[in-house]
């Protein structure tokens, strides 16, 4: 692998890794909030789902 390709690979890995980490973190946070809300919110316990 040439130096040029090494730099290209590192750049794409950084950007895709960064966005993947952001997306994964957000999805986990979203799922946790939704789960907690299902337990706490009386409206959702009556059968109304969290949007």
């Amino acid at each position: 692998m040439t130096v040029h390709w090494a730099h290209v690979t590192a750049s794409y890995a950084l950007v895709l890794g960064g966005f993947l980490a952001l997306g994964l973190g957000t999805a986990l946070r979203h799922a946790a909030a939704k789960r907690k809300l299902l337990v706490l919110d009386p409206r959702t316990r009556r059968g109304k789902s969290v949007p």
Partner: protein
Amino acid sequence: MDTAPPNTAAAAAPGRDRAPAGRGASLHRFANPGRFLRLTGRIQPWLVGSALLVLAIGLPWALVFSPPDWQQGETVRILYIHVPMAWLAMGGYAGLAIGSAIALVWRHPLADLACRELSPVGAMVTALCLATGSLWGKPMWGTWWVWDARLTSVLVLFFLWLGHAALVRAFDDPERGARMGAILALIGAVNLPIVKYSVDWWNTLHQPASLTRLNAPALHVDILYPLLVCALGFTLAFAAVVLARTRAAVMERRIRALQMAAARRADTRE
């Protein structure tokens, strides 16, 4: 100007769908967390799907199918991700400034939350812009970094993003934190024209803009088209992440309000 709905609207009254009448009413229609969650719950899967689809086209195009540059060789491929990160860093900050103005003037509770959730994502794309620029600069310029006007003003932009993210979380009272963050975001907006025109105002190592007009770009279509597709894909991904974070923040605020209400009920029973 209308009086804003109480800030607890974002927390405690998800079922209230009435918006204030008069000016600003259309803006406040979306301050209702129940309506916001319902609407964005429908948009979110489409946003994520379209981001993945556009990136699935754009990234292989940029990485494999576009030709190498006659001067830069394969390193030109870094620009397909560096330029969208730079556009998102600046466009996102303009969005932060607009959101902050809305939060300050109309006291819109969702604008506060959106700005709070936007700044860590903005800091991330600005850091990626600086890192990919550095990775491009080493083989092209022979150095990772120079203190020229463009690079330095983008570094200042990165610190503004970080400063906003830290400031809004630094106060016990979230409203006060949001107000301070909004003021910082508006003051920091002065940096945007400096970033944009730094390559024209000063003699910089960074090249001037190649894409000032779409009908007469300085780029060949073999480079321009994959660049535009990648920019669209990353913009959709950025919007999807910010929207999902804002949705999570709205739900977390509702959870806090419900927990407070439960604690108050327990206090009165004792």
